[in-house]
């Protein structure tokens, strides 16, 4: 079962499933964004969108709702996600908290209780918020350091965490914390620098001689690419550079299944 563990945008579920078929993907995880998140002026999927899509195609699509880590009803949101059959939730430190913020623990407790994977948008997330004179807002990327997942992955050893896009541009921290923890995964596959920079950086900095990223931790995530065959091809090339000669089935089937407990 080939899985795209992180798709961050879609226009139409029918088209999305056609793209999945064209790429040979069996399942895809649709991740939501914080309220009012936009890219190039267009709204990004919200929880209601991803949940509705997953209900339309329950055998093909899995919803990954956004939970604000500091929301007073965060644990309840996680419980609802589990009740909907979600395999993961997504956290955005850009909402205003660092991944090692202890106020996040009720949400992580709930995720652990319901055995949900926790996706973390570490590094620079590519979205904006509605902003204007007298009402300035922006995602707080300065809070989203991958290394700050370090204590949480120790406190929640049975929770699987996924650092989206290898925490671009903070890949070195992401590689380090992934190398050190059995329960941290890394995704790759978005268009542009979010795939080229980690790949080129890893090879340029000495590859496994610098930090040996475990083969068992890499998963495919198309991110914001609507062209899934192209995203998969991009990922396959990158995976080959990370792990020359490795069977891509590991990254498309085995690792996602472990991450999502499928």
């Amino acid at each position, binding site marked *: 079962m080939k899985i795209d563990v992180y798709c961050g945008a879609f226009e139409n579920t029918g088209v999305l499933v056609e793209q999945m078929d064209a790429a040979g993907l069996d399942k895809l995880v649709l991740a939501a964004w914080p309220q009012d998140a936009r890219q190039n002026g267009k709204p990004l999927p919200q929880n209601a969108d991803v949940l509705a899509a997953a209900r339309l195609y329950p055998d093909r699509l899995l919803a990954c709702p956004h939970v604000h880590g500091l929301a007073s009803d965060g644990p309840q949101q996680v419980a609802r996600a589990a009740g909907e059959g979600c395999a993961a939730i997504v956290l955005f430190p850009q909402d205003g908290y660092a991944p*090692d913020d*202890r106020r996040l*623990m009720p949400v992580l407790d709930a995720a652990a209780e319901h055995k949900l994977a926790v996706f973390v948008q570490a590094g620079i997330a590519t979205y904006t918020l509605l902003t204007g004179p007298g009402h300035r807002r922006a995602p707080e990327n300065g809070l989203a*350091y991958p*290394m*700050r997942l*370090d*204590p*949480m992955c*120790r*406190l929640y050893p049975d929770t699987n965490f996924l650092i989206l896009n290898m925490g671009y541009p903070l890949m*070195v*921290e992401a*590689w*380090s*914390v992934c*190398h*050190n923890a059995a329960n941290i995964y890394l995704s790759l596959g978005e268009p542009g620098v979010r795939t080229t920079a980690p790949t080129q950086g890893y090879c*340029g*900095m*000495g*590859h496994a*001689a*610098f*930090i*040996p990223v475990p083969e068992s931790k890499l998963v495919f995530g198309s991110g914001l690419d609507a062209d899934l065959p192209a995203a998969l091809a991009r990922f396959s090339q990158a995976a080959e550079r990370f792990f020359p000669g490795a069977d891509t089935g590991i990254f498309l089937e085995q690792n996602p299944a472990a991450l999502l407990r499928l």
Partner: protein
Amino acid sequence: MIVDSHIHYFDSPGFVDSLIREMDDVGVDKAVLLPTLEDSTWEYVGLTFRKVDTEAVIEACRQYPDRLVGAIRLDPTADSALEEFLRYADEDCIRLLKLSPTEGFRVDDHRAWPLYEECAKRGFPVLIHIGQTGGTFIGEKLEARYQLNSAMGHPLQVDTVAKAFPDVAFIIAHNGYPYKIESWAAAYDNPNVYLDMAGSGPWVDGTPSLYTALGQKSFIPINLDRVLWGCDNCLPISESMTRCSAYLRLMGAGKAQRALAFGGIAARLYRL
């Protein structure tokens, strides 16, 4: 004189005698013994630690006073930090302060300033674990839902304290893995910042490959007169020495600089 600048005290039976025997076998004259973190486990060595604090290190050093010197380890931001430091600082075997920010503090926290003033007065270097740690709390701290946090210590914090205390030697352990670039920058900018090559795996093995990949001196010139070797209990001492010697050569260190790394610097800093 050959000095292992970075050995953790383990509270396993016969540890000190075994260490001395190994040092004798490979020709290491002295070792710097560091307290480990209580109630922690290091999975990769398969050991769990209970009593591995400064007092345990002092007891160990007293068994071999001409071979072992030790460090005080504490939280420099604690209210009792200065009192604790003064309790042990006059012990003959104590020669440095060891800080582990992964416990949950920043080294540039101004509450640590009185401690650094004492280090300046006494000529005590400060060895700091910066960056990724592999250990895990298992006791009271875990019960209270606290864990080690590799994000707490960053090389740029060392830059701050090095500039505030130019008369204190600060040693960034493990080249600050994974923040090696920032560690090199901090060492480049501050003549009182040293780097240690202690450990195994990416903590130390990755240093020469990264340094070379990025262009060596043309990227950030590491002053190879300010690099120390230590085993860090990760490998047999002889293997650690062999690897570190090879890595230093790859990084451009000549014979004199390697001699400094394997004992010359430690002898000066720790008054051996």
